[in-house]
């Protein structure tokens, strides 16, 4: 076994910023091998038998929570879902107390979604349990970025590419509120892609170019020119507490992706969307349903494989904690078990 050195010594997945190119490549490879399990008649392997995974979601989520839940169950882990409305958080418990309480029941992984950026890093400092970031406000959503990269990788042949090096990816729309945009900009750049951020000034974070190392375009057609992958972001109306856009109809007129606008991008460009889709707002209904160009459902399918790969990675191997330093006790194996 060729054990490549990995920077992921700590058993958490907090964000794309902490993953090296080797880490990302390994996760994508594992997920690509895992995928086949989801198409068997018996969609279950015994890998995580006896492991406990807690999904702790402080924000609403259907696809991500279901995806993590199925990922755990298909690998035979026991999965518990905690939604905040029914939890003791509603009774005034602090976040860290909630986490310490859950840890006392000795779970192996806690998957957390929270509206506050950086919550996971805080939790990871307070507990030994592996923490997975399933979205923290406008900060990061690493598994979404990984599933997007797996989907791009599947389509590289279509784009006449062997790898991510030099691939032009336009991330378009509400960049300001989007953790998906942030994680993807970071992760794709780690893999060598050229990332562009495209959107109206009101929905573009300040210093985006400096912080993410990606050029900013304030015109959709210009931003799309030559792009091989177009990631359309959801207009996050629920996070908008000020007048960011004049109206939804005007937004579509200037920023909505349609077949006509897509003609500015490279021929055969791939269209992606993290979902849920606002049809007729950030993307036309017609383009959403075009299987030749749009890979939204492949993204969902790949999300399951990515989460299985991430849970597997976090549950395998023994982590030895020595004072401040965490090292991994990896035995170099000969010929398997």
């Amino acid at each position, binding site marked *: *076994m*060729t*054990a*490549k050195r*990995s920077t*992921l*010594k700590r*058993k958490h997945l907090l964000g794309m910023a902490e993953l090296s190119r080797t*880490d990302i490549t*390994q996760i994508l*490879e*594992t997920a*690509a*091998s*895992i995928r*086949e*399990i989801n198409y*068997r*008649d*018996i969609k*279950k*392997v*015994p*890998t*995580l038998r006896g492991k406990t995974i807690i999904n702790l979601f402080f924000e609403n989520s259907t696809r991500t929570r279901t995806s993590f839940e199925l990922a755990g169950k298909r*690998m035979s882990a026991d999965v518990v879902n905690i939604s905040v409305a029914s939890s003791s958080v509603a009774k005034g418990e602090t976040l860290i107390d909630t986490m310490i309480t859950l840890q006392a029941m000795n779970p192996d992984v806690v998957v957390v979604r929270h509206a506050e950026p950086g919550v996971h890093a805080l939790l990871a400092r307070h507990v030994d349990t592996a923490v997975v970031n399933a979205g923290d406000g406008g900060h990061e959503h690493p598994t979404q970025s990984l599933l997007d990269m797996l989907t791009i990788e599947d389509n590289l042949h279509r784009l006449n590419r062997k790898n991510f090096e030099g691939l032009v990816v336009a991330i378009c729309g509400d960049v300001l509120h989007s953790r998906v945009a942030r994680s993807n900009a970071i992760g794709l750049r780690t893999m060598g892609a050229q990332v562009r951020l495209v959107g109206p000034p009101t929905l573009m974070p300040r210093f985006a170019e400096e912080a993410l190392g990606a050029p900013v375009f304030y015109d959709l057609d210009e931003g799309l020119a030559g792009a091989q992958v177009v990631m359309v972001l959801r207009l996050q109306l629920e996070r908008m507490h000020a007048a960011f856009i004049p109206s939804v109809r005007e937004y579509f007129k200037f920023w909505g992706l349609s077949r006509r606008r897509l003609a500015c991008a490279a021929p055969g460009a791939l269209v992606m969307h993290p979902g849920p889709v606002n049809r007729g707002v950030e993307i036309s209904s017609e383009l959403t349903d075009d299987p030749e160009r749009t890979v939204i459902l492949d993204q969902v399918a790949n999300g399951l494989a990515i989460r299985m790969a991430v849970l*597997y*990675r976090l*549950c*395998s*191997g*023994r982590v030895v904690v020595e004072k401040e330093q965490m090292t*991994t*006790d*990896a*035995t*170099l*194996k*000969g*010929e*398997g*078990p």
Partner: protein
Amino acid sequence: MDAMTQLHEEIVMTADAVRQAVDRLAQHIQADVTQPQNWVVIGIRRGGAVVARLLRDRLTQLRGITLPIGYLDITFYRDDLDTVGPNPLVGATDLAMDIDDKHIILVDDVLFTGRTIRAALNALFDFGRPEGVSLAILVDRGHRQLPIQPDYVAETLETQRRESIKLVEKGTGEFVVVRRLRA
């Protein structure tokens, strides 16, 4: 691979010896194949996949029939999740054929503790209910920890527990068996 483990490396089966061993396996197996339409060759990744492919090719030459071939990766069925290391490599399982009521020739390069075979049998039964399974092994190196015995063995080798015996590629398409002393 560590520099430490490469220091004590010795070839115990040359490419020719491997070819002859595969040939012996094929000769033994083909005598038992009465209904070839029911037989399927399945190799365990990664070494077993190579042996399975060589074996299938040899059986094709001997009998003029091409048996279907599949590959199993047993990583997700291992019993040592806690010791596999932080970033285990996983190969793809590729079983395109229906294995219900088929006779499976399960192929691996080296038989050691028997745990890989236990995992492979579990994996196999998640895909269907074969009529029977025979185990074909290139090298039996002993030290079994489970009650598992091969049906076809090409070579047996006296080994120390802490040695590693592996099928490795030397040059394109040439495979040798090496013995390494684990540091």
